[in-house]
């Protein structure tokens, strides 16, 4: 690896120059834009980035980034990425996945990557649809979704990606949206600073097969009542001029109430560092129309990263055991034939 000072990058230094083939108007463009901008500002040599994806519109992502990358197998990006991170922990390994890629076919790998706390930064582009295969419902589609494969409406209830991540023990969990470029960049920066697995759900619009799926969140007018931005140490205020807030009733039930100058002792004050995940889990479940959707970092707690433990065991073995190959091949009992 080069020990030269890290060059200062511009956004375009991270563009591979390959013609981008997403549909015009697709939310993936703004995510690409935000990632390129955020990577350029990170102070990490470009050659240290590896981006690994599965299959889907979203998973074309690595081709458009001038970093090392793998466009992998449907659902299996976390497996490839885990191997890379274990073999070369010094690399910055990012995973790009979709709601189908990450939660349907690849659900198993996703939860295990988070359970192990492998130092992967996972961006899940959630458009609540299968884009690449032309519009079937996905594990995040709302129940009753009429699609090409569900002409009478889907009958299975959806996952909340963040609840899945938290349930799997993720140590960093955040949510943002394609339309909120600055917020998206900030979440990417935060994820990069986290040691261990980081999971970011990016609400993404598929203007071809599921247009407006997040209109209630990203619409200029709608977002006022439907989004609450999580800020460390701050009460959860939302609505016009922050006139509303979230409280937790004694029975454990969250409720949206009028803001009365912070006097209510039941106000939820956000603490992303809480070791115990149940408040983050509660937040991950809040959604309109009853509640605003939380955007920001739900959880960011320290825990040993898998690759560190993996290499710690190797280091200990190297210190305490012989590495003599002849001795190993011979084993504890040998005999000689003259």
């Amino acid at each position, binding site marked *: 690896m080069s020990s030269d000072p890290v060059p200062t990058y511009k956004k375009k230094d991270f563009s591979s120059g390959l013609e981008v083939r997403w549909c015009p108007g697709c939310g993936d463009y703004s995510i690409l834009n935000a990632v390129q901008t955020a990577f350029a500002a990170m102070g990490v040599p470009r050659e240290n980035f590896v981006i690994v994806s599965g299959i889907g519109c979203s998973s074309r992502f690595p081709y458009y980034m001038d970093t090392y990358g793998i466009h992998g197998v449907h659902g299996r990006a976390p*497996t490839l990425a885990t*191997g890379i991170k274990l073999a070369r922990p010094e690399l910055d390994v990012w995973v790009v996945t979709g709601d189908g890629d990450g939660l349907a076919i690849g659900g198993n790998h996703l939860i295990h990557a988070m359970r192990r706390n492998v130092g992967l930064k996972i961006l899940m582009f959630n458009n609540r649809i299968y884009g690449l295969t032309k519009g079937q419902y996905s594990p995040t589609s709302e129940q009753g979704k009429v699609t090409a494969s569900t002409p009478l409406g889907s009958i299975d209830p959806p996952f909340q990606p963040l609840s899945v991540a938290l349930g799997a023990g993720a140590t960093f969990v955040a949510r943002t949206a394609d339309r909120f470029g600055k917020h998206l960049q900030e979440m990417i920066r935060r994820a990069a600073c986290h040691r261990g697995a980081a999971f970011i759900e990016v609400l993404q619009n598929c203007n071809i097969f599921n247009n407006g799926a997040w209109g209630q969140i990203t619409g200029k007018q709608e977002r006022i009542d439907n989004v609450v931005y999580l800020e460390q140490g701050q009460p959860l205020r939302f609505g016009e001029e922050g006139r509303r807030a979230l409280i937790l009733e004694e029975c454990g039930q969250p409720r949206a109430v009028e803001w009365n100058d912070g006097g209510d002792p039941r106000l939820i004050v956000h603490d992303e560092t809480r070791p115990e995940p149940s408040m983050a889990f509660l937040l991950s479940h809040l959604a309109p129309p009853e509640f605003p959707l939380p955007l920001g970092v739900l959880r960011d707690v320290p825990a040993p990263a898998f690759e560190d433990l993996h290499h710690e*065991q190797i280091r200990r073995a190297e210190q305490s055991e012989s590495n003599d190959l002849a001795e190993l091949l011979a084993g504890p009992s040998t*005999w000689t034939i003259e």
Partner: protein
Amino acid sequence: MTSQSPSQGGTTPRQRVEAAIIRLAGDSGDGIQLTGSRMSETSALAGNDVATLPDYPAEIRAPAGTLPGVSGFQLQFASKSVLTPGDQADALVAFNPAALRVNLSGLKQGGILIVNSDAFDANNLRKAGYDHSPLEGHELEGFRVYPVGITSITRQALEQTDLSLRAKDRCKNFFALGMLYWLYSRPLEPTLEWLRRKFASQPELAEANEKVLRAGYNYAETARIFQTVYEVAHAPLPAGLYRSLDGNEAIALALAAVAHQSGLQVFLGSYPITPASTVLHRAGRLKAHGVATFQAEDEIAAVGAALGASFAGALGVTSTSGPGLALKGEMLGLAVMMELPLLVICVQRGGPSTGLPTKTEQADLDIALHGRHGECPMPVLAAASPGDCFHMVFEAARLAIRHMTPVILLSDGYIANGAEPFRVPAPEDLPPIPVHFHTDPETFRGAYVRDAATGARPWVRPGTPGLEHRVGGLEKDAQGAVSYDPENHEQMVRARAAKIEGIESDIPPASLEEGEAEDDLLIVGWGSTWGAITQATRELRQQGLKVSSLHLRYLQPLPGGLGEILEQHSGRILLPELNRGQLREVLSARYGVTIEGLQKVQGQPFRVSEIKARARKMLEETR
């Protein structure tokens, strides 16, 4: 009942024999496998050539005393070269009626039969399906039967110890082992030393087992139950340092050797599955030798992580058995597209599905050769014996790295668990495995610009400045850009295939293992049937029959010159396989030759006699 009476007066006569075949059988909780491996190692240390066949049930502790719960272990040790655990046993130790019932047909007429008479109670007899005790009937006539109260004498020997009755009873396998050691003039010392190592933290157990081992030895000596003591002299093996080794241990050791000779980190991603799990277990202890292991959430993740590690500049390895190889199929397609080194080890078992998970079979050849989507060729190699696993892992790794390709290595349950004396290679005698990472942006012309000699693409480690590039499942052009161009796709499909076919010039050409080109019959084999085929060929030749043999370690690409040899023998070729004829179909289709198959799909390896019988029949028919 032909129970043997103690020999009278004087010392017991000694008889020198060339080879001995012993079978041990009991409940899966009786410690049969352990007893068998101690006897094997002791014989190997005594300088014999040894071959073993562990044969255990799929259940960890199958219901005690039942027929399906019987665990067996056969070994042959000899003063000559032995290549198989032997057909019929000279001596059988049966720890209970079920073990007797299952194994009696495997004992030679006139053979020695030691039974634990304490276990022949009404309950056990019923579970084994006997309506009377065979010790009292006629069915054991023709054998030399030694009923010994193994359980009760073991308890007596341990009277003074504080062990629980259960713990005492668990020592009884060492009583039988002691008897065998006396019967075959084996030293106790290697086993005693092993006990001290094994039970270093539980000296009371080491002591108890030692007591019982000695009790068995002394019992055989003082009770004088055997008429003869046998001796097997040491075998004329090539000079060198030897150890006892089973196939899976050989694979693990080879991974360390590969790390050493290539300078690469070896990364084994695996998911437990019988009979491959012990590769992961053993490799897990090789961290100081450059081998890292990762137990993944499933076989897909295991191969995915291995492939990721290869992309990162390590040598990715994954170990599995048939069901796992099926799961890995899609990722192997990606590996073929990414053109990275990757080693896939498949230790075959009886299939399909869970099939006979603890038994051996060669039925994953088809999936190894063809079981992927698209035009997806990759080299397929097969190990011939436990020790050969070491050399073939090394060879598979060399090919994977040199030719930038995933490689499948086939082993199977028989050689994975079977042990033999292994001549320990000196590290300085191992060939180097050259590795070249491309680092210079000036000379980098594209991710898929191929080496003129091998057709391999350059290997670039992430972290190399100026060589950032993307690989993946979509078809690429030579520069590494995604390409949907029809001509390019066809050209790339052909280039990938040509690269694999070209490996033919990097492997040894086909040659006869035994015999001469003009012989009347050629026996062809691959994988673990090597021992039985070679032994059968040698025995037939000793009887003056003109039989030769040829063994295939490379199944894709096939070695050069194979076609000519087969054409020369067309119509006079026998191909024994533990499947329905998978290689026979490949060779017949490829070379248009007539081959007779000898098929066996019973979860058991071939007996030498089965191959000899079919060979004789063919020789008579073609005469």
